[in-house]
């Protein structure tokens, strides 16, 4: 079975294609979404999902969330004694999703289609693919999130559709894609985005707003506990932001050192504070419209995807931009995973999808740095020369020829870059290739550089020097490790050796973690009540009677819902 996985910043989901339609797979808590969080329990086992997310504000030093934002970088998250790279943490989440899918379907998962933000660069894509391999999944394909959403939306009625725009604002990334459907071909016309803009940034804004508002009334934590304090504020911000989606006035509440603090926040003040972020939403939209050459009035629909598009302020900004209300046909949290499942169905050649094909575009320009002789003979370095221009339909393959600039040049260094700036320093550096060239006068040696971009958005470079017949392939890997199969195997073994918290205990762990968080978040009478609930649950678990445990757990959940409002994903 091939599954589709939406590996999100805050939540992930897994789905598969069954009986002609994509189906979301519930996890062991019965939820369709699994928080992308990893935590180490007191007994040293690894918790993934809801339980880990609940521990975020109580045990920030052994919990990691939002690690997708650091994919493709060398940054490590230290959880207790062991340091994890973002791809290892993602691998743990993927492995948990894989286990959920296998338990639900009763058959092994052989491969996966994993979604990535369209604006993920090559390093981030490769890291995501490695994460899948570390989790023991064969990564059949990486698919862009807005493209997946469009695919899920497009196969609803399969009719021809005028271009529509997918506006995907997730927990940590923002993408815009313009998609068209004709004759069963779903074609992405242009993609643009910002891979550092999402719900988390709105939380940050809200925290800053409250900090400014409370001023001196804000407790000052000890140096060693600032990290913990920030997490408490962030969790409170998330809660407040969700409440602001329904009401105009909400209070920002948190407990620190046994004292309760509140600050009123109204929707209007939040909108003013978030204005710079809302302004940042505009640029990618403009870029995608320019690239596709489509005007807003010829768009048939605006499709909102991603949890952060639930915020009324974002919806208002969208309405202002397009002069009309966005559509609400798709579920903002489920659309991407469902689309990935459709892609998985295409991969499996599901007969229900015989008449559907998908083409995507390359969202970035890819090229090399070149030098140029100025009119006065000086050498101008670092000019970006694109080979595959953005919005090229993929898979694509392009060749450009370059010539030497100096007499008797012995070798050519080609730096591969991804980006749009004329000056390569502002683009993302992907790697360096050196080729030896025969020494000749300037301009007489030619090298042909071929860029091949595959459907998963991964790049291969081949260089040929016709004069000497030399051919060279790009064999550079970025990120940690040397990328060789042995190295990957070693790291997979290291991850597999970690003790994962037992799956059938996950629900208990999640409830206990939630209760622990509530215990820290309340004072007085309510705290005592939570303490009592924890004790009851512990007792039930010690009793080892599954039916009783389940009954007590649901009672505790209901009690907690009453105390703090419904649990959310």
């Amino acid at each position, binding site marked *: 079975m091939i599954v589709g996985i939406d590996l999100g910043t805050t939540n992930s989901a897994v789905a598969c294609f069954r009986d002609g339609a994509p189906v979301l797979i519930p996890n062991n808590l019965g939820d369709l979404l699994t928080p992308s969080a990893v935590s180490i329990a007191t007994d040293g086992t690894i918790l993934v999902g809801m339980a880990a997310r609940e521990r975020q504000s109580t045990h920030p030093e052994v919990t990691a969330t939002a690690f997708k934002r650091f994919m493709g970088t060398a940054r490590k998250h230290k959880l207790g004694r062991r340091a994890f790279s973002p791809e290892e943490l993602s691998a743990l989440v993927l492995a948990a999703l894989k286990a959920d899918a296998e338990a639900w379907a009763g058959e092994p998962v052989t491969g996966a289609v994993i979604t990535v933000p369209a604006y993920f660069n090559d390093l981030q894509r490769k890291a995501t693919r490695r994460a899948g391999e570390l989790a023991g999944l064969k990564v059949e*394909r990486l698919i862009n999130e807005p493209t997946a959403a469009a695919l899920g939306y497009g196969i609803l009625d399969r009719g021809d559709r005028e271009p529509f725009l997918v506006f995907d604002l997730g927990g940590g990334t923002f993408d815009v894609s313009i998609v068209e459907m*004709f*004759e*069963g*071909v779903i074609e992405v016309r242009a993609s643009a985005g910002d891979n550092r803009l999402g719900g988390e940034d709105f939380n940050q804004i809200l925290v800053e707003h409250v900090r400014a508002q409370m001023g001196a009334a804000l407790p000052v934590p000890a140096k060693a506990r600032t990290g913990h304090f920030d997490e408490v504020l962030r969790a409170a911000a998330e809660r407040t932001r969700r409440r602001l989606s329904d009401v105009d006035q909400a209070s920002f509440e948190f407990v620190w050192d046994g004292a309760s603090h509140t600050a009123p926040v109204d929707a209007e003040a939040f909108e003013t504070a978030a204005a710079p972020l809302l302004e940042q939403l*505009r*640029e990618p*939209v*403009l870029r995608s*419209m*320019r690239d596709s050459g489509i*005007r*807003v*009035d010829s768009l048939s629909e605006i499709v909102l995807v991603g949890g952060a598009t639930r915020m009324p302020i974002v919806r208002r900004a969208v309405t*202002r*931009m*397009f*002069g009309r209300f966005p559509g609400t046909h798709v579920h903002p949290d489920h659309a991407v995973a469902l689309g990935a499942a459709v892609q998985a169905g295409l991969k499996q050649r599901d007969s229900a999808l*015989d*008449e559907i*094909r998908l*083409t995507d575009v390359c969202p970035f*320009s890819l090229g090399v740095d070149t030098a140029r002789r100025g009119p006065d003979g000086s050498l101008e370095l670092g000019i*970006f*020369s*694109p080979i595959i*221009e953005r919005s090229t*339909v993929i*898979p*694509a*393959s392009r060749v450009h020829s370059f010539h030497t600039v100096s007499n008797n040049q012995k070798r050519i260094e080609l730096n591969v870059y991804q980006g*749009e*700036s*004329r*000056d390569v320093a*502002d683009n993302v550096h992907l790697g360096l290739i050196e080729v030896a060239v025969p020494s000749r006068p300037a301009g007489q040696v030619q090298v042909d550089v071929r860029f*091949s971009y*595959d*459907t998963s958005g991964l790049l291969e470079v081949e260089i040929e020097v016709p004069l000497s017949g030399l051919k060279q392939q790009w064999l550079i890997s970025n990120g940690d490790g040397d990328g060789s199969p042995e190295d990957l195997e070693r790291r997979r073994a290291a991850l597999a050796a970690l003790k994962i918290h037992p799956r059938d205990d996950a629900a208990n762990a999640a409830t206990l973690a939630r209760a622990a968080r509530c215990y820290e978040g309340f004072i007085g009478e309510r705290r005592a009540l939570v303490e009592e609930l924890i004790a009851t649950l512990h007792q039930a678990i010690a009793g080892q009677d599954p039916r009783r445990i389940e009954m007590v757990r649901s009672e505790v959940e209901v009690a907690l819902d009453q105390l703090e409002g419904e649990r959310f994903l």
Partner: protein
Amino acid sequence: MTLEPWDRLGIAATTDETAIRRAYSRALKAIDVDADPASFIALREAFDAARWLAANAAQNTIDVEAESETMMRERPLEASVAKAPPRDRPQWQHDIEALQALIWSEASREAIFEEVGMRTRRLIDGPEMAEIDHATAIEQWIAETIVIGIPRTNGMIAPAIEAFGWADRAQRWDCPPILDAVMRRHRDNQFIAAVLDARGAEQRAFDLLRDPGARPDRRQLTSVEAFLRRLRDYHPTIEAELSEEAVTAWEALAWQRYRAWPARTARRLRAFRASMISWYRILYLDRIWAVLWMLLLILFCLGAVVATYGVALLPIIGALTQSRDRRS
């Protein structure tokens, strides 16, 4: 390998977009893109080429009426300006008309600068700018107006660059030419501001070139000429700011000086010197010492050879003379 796009798509040449798409879709469903990317790339190229051919063929047969209609559609701004009833027209339309009137009016550049800037700012800050289509159309209109109206649109440049982030877009490799033109104009303005600020020879030259009444003066000619050349090489938009009469007068003076006998003699002398230098090179006179050393070396080698032969010959000669003695 090079197939006509129509062959690859499996249809006869057509201008019908739907037919091309249908053929493409059919061919696409027949191939496995992941297993065989090369045939997808070929198909896609054929598809793009076919659409391009179709669009071009359609363009050639289009009649004038339809064309003017598409032009109206491409220029939504003018179209909506014309259609809207005069009473409840929004502020931005008034501003656009006022800007056009100002830019093509008889008033001096300095007099309209403030008002042009104010109206541009109001245009940019208008509430309709939140809408993307409107913002794009206004952006395009402002860029075009700035470039067409140089130098009278100076007041529009700074607010527009700031509001639309053109400075950032000019850093990108795919910056449209019109924005490049605006940014060049902006740089030229900054250059002039710096020149005027410095109050040096260049500032005097600039003032002289702007003043239609100034009589060209031989003493200033060299610096004026150098400044004019610099403008033309590096800041071409500034020439529009100069007084045409002044430039003509200074150029006439320069030409006069160019044609006068001292300059002519100097040029001839320079030409003579250049030819001497080239002959000097041809005869290797610039490497005379190297050549002399080389000759000396050859002589030395010859001498060495002769000397060696001489030494070798001595015993032979000796032996010959001895044998003759013996015979006798």
